């Protein structure tokens, strides 16, 4: 019998962790990012429904108090508890960033893969509109849209979505064009698998993963952008709490109560850090060939 007997079974490869979440957990910095992110999400979710003090009811007797046991982050100029305001603002800062990214991810993925796979007129129309949207730097376009719609939280979200979707559409398009040429897609075509099943089974999951990684990596700067616009008074309107808006309010009193700046700044820092850690780890563990 030949040593090359093709029926001889091969060596069994060592088991590899296939679930993305668990691989993320094993990544040295991914774990810390997941823990920090989960804690922040919990904090934000809780803050949306409950806070130790009412976040926007003034208490003039306790204005500009330093940090204490009753008010760990102190109180602001109208005596509102800073901890409660930071807690209540969390879901606006983090939630809005996630919402915008989820929206541009979905819009970009659908339009981009549609353009890439349908080709022809659909492709031309979608991509020319995207080209026009990308002629302006994202933040500048967001300013333009906000100038058009006027300040406001919802308007800010719309502006950021308008400013960002085209990048995701272009990425999805080029990824799906690339995927369409892959041998496994041609093999499925030849086997007579219907088109919709090839798109859903072969093409979309891979494209969605890549675009999802890009969106996760963008989460940090999106949190920064939302708090930045709110800092300028173009996003969340008072008295609603949001971290960027809190920074703007606190800034007026920094000579008297500099600690007021620290709490929202820390929260922004921690959430961007968590997003960066998870995003970078995701990019590391999801890159093909590094199983």
């Amino acid at each position, binding site marked *: 019998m030949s040593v090359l007997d093709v029926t001889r079974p091969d060596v069994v490869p060592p088991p590899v962790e296939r679930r993305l979440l668990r691989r993320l957990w094993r990544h040295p910095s991914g774990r810390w990012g997941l823990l920090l992110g989960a804690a922040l999400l919990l904090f934000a979710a809780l803050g949306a429904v409950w806070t130790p003090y009412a976040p926007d009811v003034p208490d003039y007797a306790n204005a500009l108090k330093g940090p204490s046991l009753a008010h760990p982050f102190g109180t602001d100029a109208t005596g509102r508890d800073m901890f409660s305001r930071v807690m209540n603002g969390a879901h606006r800062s983090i939630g809005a960033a996630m919402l915008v990214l989820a929206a541009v991810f979905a819009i970009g993925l659908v339009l981009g893969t549609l353009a890439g796979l349908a080709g022809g007129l659909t492709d031309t129309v979608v991509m020319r509109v995207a080209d026009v*949207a990308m002629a302006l730097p994202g933040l*500048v376009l967001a300013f333009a849209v906000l*100038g058009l719609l006027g300040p406001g939280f919802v308007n800010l979200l719309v502006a950021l979505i308008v400013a960002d979707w085209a990048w995701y559409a272009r990425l999805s398009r080029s990824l799906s064009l690339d995927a369409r040429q892959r041998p496994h897609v041609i093999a499925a075509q030849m086997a007579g698998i219907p088109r919709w099943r090839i798109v859903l089974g072969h093409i979309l999951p891979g494209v969605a993963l890549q675009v999802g990684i890009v969106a996760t990596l963008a989460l940090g700067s999106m949190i*920064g952008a939302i708090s930045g616009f709110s*800092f*300028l008074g173009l996003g969340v309107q008072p008295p609603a709490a949001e971290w960027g808006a809190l920074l703007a309010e606190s800034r007026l009193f920094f000579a008297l109560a500099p600690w007021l700046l620290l709490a929202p700044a820390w929260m922004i*820092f921690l959430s961007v*850090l968590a997003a*960066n850690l998870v995003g970078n780890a995701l990019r590391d563990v999801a890159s093909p060939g590094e199983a």
Partner: protein
Amino acid sequence: MTPRFLMIGRGGLWVAVALRIAQALLTALAAAIVVWALLPLAPGDVATRVLLARGVLEPTAAEIASAREDLGLNDPLIVQLFHWLAGVVRGDLGQSFTSQAPVTQEILERLPATLMLLGLALAFSIVFSLLLALIAAGYRDRWPDRAIRLYTQIGAALPTFVFALLALTFVVVGFQMGRVLADPSWSSALIPAFIIGLDRAASWTQLLRAGLLQAMASGYADVARARGASERRILLRHALPNALLQFLTAIGVSIGALIGGAPLIEAIFTWPGLGAYLLEAMSARNYPVIQGYVLIAALSYVIAALLIDLVALLLDPRLRDQRA
């Protein structure tokens, strides 16, 4: 197995340059159309808004009609677009609703301050990230690299405006370092630009360091090593030029973020530039000013991206040959 690039001879570079310039012009045109569209898309009647801004509190129908005629609002949109574009080419961006002064003039008054601040900040970020990335890659996994990585993690997690706000409040003002409210001059731009550069450089350092390490681990680096080249020689002569090319493209994208972030930065440093002008206009719904700002920002971005691509084209022989 031969890569199928076409050599296009000496003319190749110029063809590629011409194509890239044509692309930049198209992008500029697309940006101008977006900017123009702001006005017809704006909610409410434009003529009424202009009259209100001019102080006509309760304009009559006749006044509105004559204003419409004056502003050319009765023309078809495409004609309005061409009028506007022709104006842009002549340098006419219309009149500010509030001050009645030509927008172009107001922008030109404020532009130098912004360019000064952003240019200096850009220079600081490039110098910082080059130095830090080279040190980190040269001392990989030793304490200088660890320290630099800690800095980049922190810097990347602090949005520029948050870092600027904290640095300004707790360091500059706290330690009485220089005046905050300053006239725009190179010396007063120094501290703000340094602060912005320090924060921006964090993510750029991450990027360049990764590019350098990737190049240091590449096949050509190993071959150079096997010929007897020192690590320093490989880093500076082979890894740096290759990593810089990638880095240039990233800087191009970041310049857009820097331009877009200008209003925020200027608000924090109370810098009397274009950003502050835009914020004023946004609260007053002063559309011509908003349009002017967005157009200038877009054009600066187009020019910056064009310059960067042209430099890349000069440096990378593969790009030149591919464009055939």
